[in-house]
Structures are given as structure tokens and as C-alpha cells.
């Protein structure tokens, strides 16, 4: 058991929680990333500015982490491109149809005790596990 890894995982999760509480407290909004992205490329073009600012913040956060720790965010460089593209299409389609992703349903939704979010999270975690497990057998 790598204690440091678990400590980092929990610390990161707490930061995500603090950020979500902050956005609801200040702006009255749920920190659901897919929803924030869809709002930028959506029908209504109002309220785009805060969403863009949040997205800029996400990238800035990643940048701050890399420059301050010297760590690499993504290790792999040889993942099959068609898999990444197919995954992106499915994630974009599914999160819009299902009104949320890991952040909106998994953290914020469960945090406000939404049954919809709990069911959605159980669904995408279990199916994600099944797909990843089968894929690892196929690719190896």
C-alpha cells in the first residue's frame, strides 16, 4: 500500500470538494465540468464568461501543479489514437444525454444527496470498470 499516493488522492479530492462548495456559495452553481463545457457550446450563449473562466482555471490549476512540482500529468504517449477519439465522442455524447459526468454526478450530485446522481455514478463506474477490464485483456 502506497500511503503517499492515497494521501495525495484524498487531498486532491478535498480540493475538488472545496472548489465545488466555493462555486455554489459564490455563484450559486454546480461544478459539473460537462455541464460547464456544454454551456459554452450550447444554445444559450449567455453566462458563457464564468464558464470560460472556470475552464481557464482548470488549465491554470494543472499548469501550476506541473510548474511547482515538476511532475508529469500524463505519462503515456503511445495510446491508440482511435481509442482516444472514440472515447471522447462517447464521453461527450453520454455526459450530455445523462446530464453530468464524474464531477457533476459523482461529487456534487452525491454531495447534495441526489438519487439521480447516485444511480448515474454507480452506472458509469460499473460500466467503466467492465469496459476497462475487458479492454486490458484485449490489448495485452
Amino acid at each position, binding site marked *: 500500500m502506497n500511503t503517499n499516493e492515497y494521501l495525495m488522492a484524498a487531498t486532491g479530492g478535498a480540493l475538488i470538494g472545496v472548489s465545488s462548495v466555493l462555486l455554489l456559495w459564490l455563484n450559486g452553481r454546480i461544478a459539473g465540468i460537462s455541464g460547464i463545457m456544454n454551456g459554452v457550446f450550447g444554445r444559450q450563449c449567455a453566462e458563457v464568461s464564468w464558464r470560460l473562466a472556470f475552464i481557464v482555471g482548470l488549465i491554470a490549476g494543472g499548469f501550476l501543479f506541473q510548474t511547482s512540482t515538476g511532475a508529469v500529468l500524463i505519462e503515456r504517449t503511445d495510446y491508440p489514437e482511435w481509442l482516444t477519439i472514440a472515447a471522447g465522442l462517447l464521453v*461527450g455524447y453520454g455526459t450530455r444525454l*445523462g446530464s453530468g459526468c464524474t464531477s457533476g454526478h459523482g461529487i456534487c450530485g452525491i454531495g447534495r444527496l441526489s438519487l439521480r446522481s447516485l444511480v448515474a455514478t454507480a452506472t458509469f463506474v460499473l460500466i467503466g470498470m467492465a*469496459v476497462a477490464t475487458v479492454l486490458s485483456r484485449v490489448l495485452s
Partner: protein
Amino acid sequence: MSESLKKIFAALLSGTIFGLGIAVSGLANPDKVLQFLTLSSAWSPALLFTMAAGILVTLIGYKWVLHRGPVLEQELQLPTNTTLDRKLLVGAAIFGIGWGLAGFCPGPAIVGLSSGMTEPFAFVAAAIIGSQIQRVTSSS
């Protein structure tokens, strides 16, 4: 400072903390996500710590915000749909398939843009296209 400018700064701050949280937790690294989603001898529960910590903070924080109300908005903007419908389940399932195929979900992929690597750009572009396909093809 105008209210809308304050909202933009609040979203930027929240997004930055969120992005840091994703980077610190290891979620930005799709290998780590797949290590959690793939059931094998190398299975790592680290991301459960991230979820648990995030949910714990939002559970407590949201309760407080629900009492208090938002600072820069008149009302909290919360989802009103409470039905477990087909769209939610099918959407979450499709998202789960995509998540399992590459180990990317929307937040970590956006944070990953800060690495300057090609893969997160390809994923985010595909996700935007996927969500637009859903928007254009949906009747509601």
C-alpha cells in the same frame, strides 16, 4: 467591481482549485484512472479516496450553502429533475463506456490540456463533437 466581473473571478478561482485538485489526486493521469477501472492484480483504490474526500467536503459545505444562499446570485441554480429516466441511465452508460476506453473524463482531460500533449486535445475536441451530436440529434 461589477457583479458579473466578480462572478468571473469566483469561477476562475474555483476552477483553479478544482484543476489543482484533479492534478494532485492523480486523476489527470489516464493510466491511474485505468488502474482503478481495470480489475486486476494491479487494481488501485486510490481514486475512491478522491471521491470520498470530495463527497465529504461537498456534503458538509453544500448543507451550509443551502442554508445561507449564494453571495453573487439571487438563487442557487440547482437541477430540478428528480426522475430516474432512460436518458440518465443510457447517458451514464455511454459515458461509462467512453471513460473505460481511455481513462479520460471531461475535467481531467481539460486539466491535461496544460501538459501541451496531443492526447487530451484530441479527447476534448472529440468530446465537444460528441456532445454537439447529442444536442443536434435530440428532440427535446
